Every structure is written in C-alpha cells, then in structure tokens.
C-alpha cells in the first residue's frame, strides 16, 4: 500500500525530471491563436465549448416551450422538436461536458497541478483543439444544411436514424452528425494521449501518484476511460455511415419502409446499441470523474480540511472507472437483448453504487469538523452534493432491472440523467470556474453576481428536475412532441409542465448573469494575488499570476508533501503548500 505522503523526513523527492525546452511563440498568432501553451488551449477549448453550449441552452428553451404550450409556437413542429432534443443532448454530453472537463480543465490544470511546464506534446495538443473546433463547426453546419440537423435522438439508434421518417435521416443531418463525432474523436485522442502521458511522465520531482490532487486523478482516469470508450462510438459511426452511404447492412435488417422493401438485410440494430452504450456508459463517468475530483479539492480547500480518506477516494475513482465498462447494458434492459443479461448488468450496476456512495460519505465527512468558508466554490460544491445524491439515488431505480421496466423511456429517465450527469457536473464546472478564475485572469469574480447566479441555478434546476421524476412515475414517456389527449395523464401534469418550463427559462436567463460576471470581472474584478484561497496545490504557487508560458520561471517546483495539508496541528498557517519542505512546515508522523 502506498503511504500517504507527509511532511516527515522519509519522503524525499525521487527521480529527476528533465526540464524541457518549450516552443517559444514568435508572433501574436502563434502566441494566442495557434498557441501550443496548454493554458491558452484550455481557454480556447472552454470558450468554444461554452459557446456551443449556449446553443444547446437555447434549444432546451425551445423544447420546453413546446412541452408547456403545445401548438402555440408555429415554428416548432415535430421535425424541429426532435432536431432540438437531439442536438441539445449531443452538444451537452460530448461537445460541452466532455470537451470542457478534459479539454478545458484538463489542459489548464494537469500541467500546473503536477508541476510540468506544459503538456508533453504541445503541438499535438494544439492540433487537438483545432480538430475539436472543426467537429463543432461540422455539427453546427447541420442547422444550415438542407433538411436540417438529425432528429434521431442523441442515441442515434438505427434504423430510424438513417430512414426518411426521421428528420435528417435521408438528408445531410445524420451524415454531418456522424462525421462530426468521428472528427471529435480524432481530436480527442490527440489531446487525451497528451493528458495521460503528461500525468505519467511529466510530474515534478516528488509528485508521486499518491500525492496528486484528486482533480488530476479524476481527469486522468476519465481520460484513460475515454481513450478506451470512444473507439466503440467511432466504429459505430463509421459503420452507420457505410450503411447510409454505401448500402451495407451492419445495423440494417430487412425493412419495409412506408410500404417499400429496402435493399438491406441481415444487420442487427441492437449491435449499434451495444457499441453506443459501451461508449455511452463510460461517458457518464468520463464527465463525472473529473467533477468528483474537482469537487473534492473545492471542498477540502474551502473547508480548510484535508480531504477525508484520500486513498479510498483514489481507489474509488479507479474502481468506478473500471466497473463502468461492464455496466453498459443497463441502458438496454427493455431493448430486446437476451433478458438473462439483466441479472449480470443489474448486479454490476448496483455494485458501482458502493464506491460512489463512499465518495459522497467522504465529501460530507470532510465538512465534519472543518472550518467551512461559504465561498462561491463551496456553495457550488454543496449544491453538487445535494444534486448528485438525488440523481445517484434515482439511478438505483433504473439500474435495478425490474424497477427499470416501468420507468425506462419515461420522463423519470430524463429527470435522473439531467440531475446526475447534467446539473451535477455543471454545478462543479461553475464552482471550478469560480475557484480557478483568479488564477486564469488574476482577478476575483464579483461575489454578488455570483450569488444571484448560484441560487437561481441551484434551486431552479432542482425545481425543474425533482418534480419531473413524478411525471415519469405517472407514465409520461420521454421524447414526445406532444402528449395530446391521454387518459392516464391528468390536467395537473400539464400544469407541472408549465411550471418546469417557466423555471427552465429563469435558470437559462441566470446563465447570462454568469457570463456577464465572467466578462465584467475580467476588467473590474478585485485583484486576486497569487493564492487568494490559501490553497496548497502547485497551481497556486506559480511565480506569476496568471502563470506565464512555461508555468514555473527558471526552476521547476519540487514537491514535498500531499495536496491536503490543511489545518495541520502545530503549523502556523492553516495550509502548507506542497512545495514547502518537511522542516518548513511542521514535522509529523505518517497518518495511520
């Protein structure tokens, strides 16, 4: 077992890491546009992801307007509605959450937190961003293509995804979607290999794996998972493109479409579902694990207390990452696959609840006997725990195969996954932006605007998605353009739909407050100084803020302790940075 690093004399930094010669930009273009600096690339990733995310936000407004006021808005017909939900889902999961956590936070934080000058392959890193941007542009092109974007649902299930009954099925929509995903995966692979190699090879002297902040552990594990999971989506996209363009039948059985026999035969639609969810379930944790890691560091820093059970937290991240590859078919309990699989996948799925629950316990136990500063990052962390616990617990309904049968494909599922992988990770993103904004810009975010945004977002999203579960329990199916007259749906359910839509409009508007805050504080925010939160981790110990190209000045940092020396008994301050040698803080025994 690896020991928890401590300030004691036993933990002397080991292997020497060779310093690297970085590419020095010669012009404005190579410094800020075609930059090879991970920090600039991180900002590029983040701005692009948030921009396309705003499109997804508007789409969610439109779909909510249709659900609350069916038939009132003439421009929202069934075609458009399904295009809106499809693009909203795909943008949020892939182009916003994945790109922002790994491309945005990964790029900014990995080199700084492990004490590297940059990513190990800066040029590939730059390419990764530009390929991602290309993927976003191809995706957005769907809105302007003849027939519009695909309306197949974000799961893109064939055969309907490539047939004429679905918007974009026989037009450009599905082609652009599949192409965009393929390009995204190529770009991600370039970036992802970079993150993994940087964590494994680029760490500063003394930064052992078990001294890394949990943020790095979360992003690192998620990246490894993404490198293993995305290829399944990649081949699925290629195969569907072949089916659509070349007349192959990977996913296409014999079909009579609108009275006409198609020239396909022998393919398996359910094969696509297996490939999709073999990617799709790890994807949930590709988004969740960075959030888990980041929120651990937010809680620890702002409660001035070491994260409780660090080793267990690391192992929980690794175990969740591994288990998430053998639970995928819990998305397919009623897909028509061999029902005997239900026993296996229900068991693995519910087992994954145990390491996840341990993480939740350790977060709240970190609060216990802490010195809780209710800063914006801490508020978002608390909101994350509430939301994540709620969404995680409803996962126990859907994971338990027989309970899933009445609930699958209803609004219960929509409510569940929005809580657990929509709202919860986004709350962490907001908390993380509030936490690291001072390092990125050198200025603090405005507290009042931040509070307005926080409370509206937290309580608003809870008011949207908590009651939504009960619509699903009632039996309201998801992906319905309109409910129409349905005997088992009482009029009160429609009132609830109107309430949810009003809340969604308010929460959406509150995001404008946040964006305004980001821009306003850039010019008017209070000067932050190098380490406003009095945090221990390396990124707060840089010689300049914002950190310069190369991060560390002449000398690379040397790490002497783990990332969580907060409120160490006997120490003068309530934090000891990782760079402080054993005798510079306080000597103590290795914790039992």
């Amino acid at each position, binding site marked *: 077992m690896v020991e928890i690093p401590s300030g004691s004399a036993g933990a002397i930094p080991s292997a020497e890491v060779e310093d690297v010669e970085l590419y020095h930009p010669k012009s404005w273009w190579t410094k800020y546009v075609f930059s090879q600096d991970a920090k600039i690339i991180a900002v590029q990733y983040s701005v692009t992801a948030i921009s396309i995310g705003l499109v997804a936000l508007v789409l969610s407004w439109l779909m909510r307007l249709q659900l609350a006021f069916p038939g009132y808005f003439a421009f929202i017909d069934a075609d458009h509605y399904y295009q809106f939900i499809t693009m909203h889902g795909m943008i949020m999961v892939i182009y916003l959450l994945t790109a922002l956590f790994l491309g945005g936070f990964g790029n900014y934080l990995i080199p700084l937190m492990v004490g590297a000058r940059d990513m190990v392959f800066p040029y590939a890193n730059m390419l990764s961003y530009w390929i991602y941007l290309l993927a976003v542009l191809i995706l957005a092109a769907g809105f302007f293509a003849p027939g519009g974007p695909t309306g197949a649902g974000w799961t893109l299930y064939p055969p309907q995804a490539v047939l004429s*009954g679905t918007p974009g099925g026989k037009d450009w929509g599905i082609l652009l979607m599949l192409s965009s995903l393929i390009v995204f995966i190529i770009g991600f692979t370039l970036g992802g290999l970079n993150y993994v190699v940087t964590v494994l090879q680029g760490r500063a002297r003394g930064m052992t794996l078990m001294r890394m902040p949990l943020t790095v552990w979360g992003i690192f594990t998620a990246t490894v998972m993404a490198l293993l999971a995305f290829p399944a989506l990649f081949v699925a996209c290629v195969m569907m493109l072949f089916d659509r363009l070349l007349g192959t039948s990977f996913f296409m059985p014999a079909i009579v479409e609108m009275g006409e026999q198609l020239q396909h035969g022998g393919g398996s639609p359910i094969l696509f579902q297996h490939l999709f969810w073999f990617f799709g379930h790890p994807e949930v944790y590709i988004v969740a694990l960075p959030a888990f890691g980041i929120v651990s560091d937010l809680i620890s820093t702002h409660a001035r207390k070491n994260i409780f059970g660090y080793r267990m937290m690391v192992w929980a991240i690794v175990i969740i990452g591994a288990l998430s590859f053998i639970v995928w078919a819990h998305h397919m309990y009623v897909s028509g696959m061999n029902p005997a699989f239900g026993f296996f996948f229900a068991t693995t799925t519910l087992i994954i609840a145990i390491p996840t*629950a341990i993480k939740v316990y350790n977060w709240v136990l970190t609060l216990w006997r802490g*010195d809780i500063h209710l800063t914006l990052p801490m508020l978002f962390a608390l909101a994350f725990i509430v939301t994540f616990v709620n969404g995680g617990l409803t996962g126990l*309904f859907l994971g338990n195969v027989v309970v899933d049968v009445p609930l699958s494909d209803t609004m219960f599922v929509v409510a569940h996954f929005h809580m657990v992988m929509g709202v919860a990770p986004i709350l962490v993103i907001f908390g993380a932006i509030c936490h690291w904004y001072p390092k990125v810009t050198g200025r603090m975010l405005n507290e009042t605007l931040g509070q307005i945004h926080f409370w509206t977002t937290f*309580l608003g999203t809870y008011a949207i998605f908590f009651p939504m579960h009960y619509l699903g*329990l009632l039996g309201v199916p998801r992906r319905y353009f309109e409910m129409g007259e349905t005997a088992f749906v009482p009029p009160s359910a429609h009132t609830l739909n109107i309430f949810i839509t009003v809340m969604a409009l308010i929460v959406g508007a509150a995001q404008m407050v946040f964006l305004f805050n980001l821009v306003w504080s850039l010019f008017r925010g209070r000067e932050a100084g190098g380490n406003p939160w009095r945090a221990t981790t390396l990124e707060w110990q840089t010689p300049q803020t914002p950190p310069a190209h190369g991060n560390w000045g002449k000398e690379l940092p040397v790490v002497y302790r783990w990332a969580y020396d907060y409120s160490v008994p006997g120490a003068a301050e309530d934090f000891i940075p990782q760079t402080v040698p054993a005798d510079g803080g306080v000597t103590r025994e290795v914790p*039992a």
Partner: protein
Amino acid sequence: MAVVLILVLIVVGSVLFHVLSPWWWTPIASNWTYIDSTLVITFWITGIVFVAVVSFMAYCVFRFRHKPGNRAAYEPENRRLELLLGGGTAVGVAAMLAPGLVVWNQFITVPDDAVPVEVVSQQWLWSFRLPGVDGKLGRAETRDVSPENPLGLNKNDASGLDDVIIEGGELHLPVGKPVRILLRSIDVLHDFYVPEFRAKMDMIPGMITYFWFTPTRTGSFEILCAELCGIGHAQMRGTVVVEEAADYQTWLGQQQTFTQLMASGEPRPAN
C-alpha cells in the same frame, strides 16, 4: 445560516412533495404488483439515504461554518468508519437488488399456459395477430410483407392460415389469462408500452422480442410507443381492451383470419 435553512427546506420539501404530489403511478391492471413493491422498497431506502446525507450536510454547515479563530480538525483517514459506511451501503444495495432479481426472474419466465399474442409495429401503426383454432401462430417475415399481406405471413405455413389479423384496430384480451406478447417490427425500433401493465419491451426489426403478463382487471387501456421511431412517435397510439371471456369470444368471432384477408384481396389503405 441561509444555506442551512435552504438545505433543510430541500429535505423537507422533497419529502412533502413525494407524499403530497398528485402524480403517482396509474392503477395497475396486471399481475406485476411485485414490480410496484420493489419500487416502493427502493423509494424507502433511497429516501432515507437522501434525508440522512443532506441533513448531515446541513448540520455540518450549521456547526462548522467559519468563525474567526476557528480551525479545522486534522483527520486524514478513519479506516473503521470508512469500512462501516461501505458495508452499510452494501447491505442497502443488496436489500434492493435481491428482490429486484427475484422479480426479474419471474418477469422473464413465461408460464406454459400463456397464450401467444403478436404485436406488429410500423411507422406509426399498431397491428396484432392472434392464433386461430390451432392455438399456434404461423411463421412470418419482413421479406413477405406486401400490400395484400401486411404482416408478412408465410402463405405456405398451414398453421398461419387461421391466424386472426387485426390491422390498426383494437387488441382485445381476456381477463385473468396469462398472455405472451410477441413483438415484431417491420421498419424501425418501437416499444409496446401500456402504463397500467407496467411491462414494456422494445420491438426490433429482424428479431422477435417478448414479455408476458396477466391482465387483472377489465377496461380499455392506451398503448403508447416508448422508443423514438420518427416524427410520428407521439401519435403512435393504440388501444387494448381487457374483457370477460364471453365478451372476448364474441369479439374474436368478428375478426378476419389470414385466409379471409387473402380472399378479400382488398388493397390495403395507405397509412
């Protein structure tokens, strides 16, 4: 303090909403009351955990929020506590999983006396096929679908000639008799979903999927499609009528068999 108050309000509000909300499952009309029971067990266990975790958080914020001079405790690990909590969680998980798997086993074990009933889906229409006097359904394939033969029955299979074909109409079922619902699609994915029966299953072109249930009360129930199947998805509705055996036999006698359908030679109305 506002934070503490709001956390407490979230706990109390969520519990009250659960108890008082008018939105709950539809009255059941099948034998799957065990599914409802498992769901209730899950509500109890997860509800208790939710209340406990958020209340504990509220207490921590109340008790340990920053005041000048405060200092946090230093406690990196507590192996005993971590094992205890992990073990407790495992017990809770087992308490939900075990009954769930038992009921799942019942769900996928079709009783021998279940009568086969075929549901055939296409964009955006439900059709049905019931066995004739021989009690067997004949073979059918998507390749054999044509305007005259909308469900694609094999004309050379004698056991299919007396099959009862209902195209786009109502499905009737006798109350109290277990049925094995065989699901077939001729174009894209669909899902046969009647909320009152609790059961649902996807329909996949090229495959036959199934589930079984016993209707337990008479009445008329709406069939919905629960798997996105294109722009007509929300309009793809049907009706299943559960009635007493005598009424069912009367209705059955009025339906046409495959042989009658072929003989009538009526061109199929365009959908």
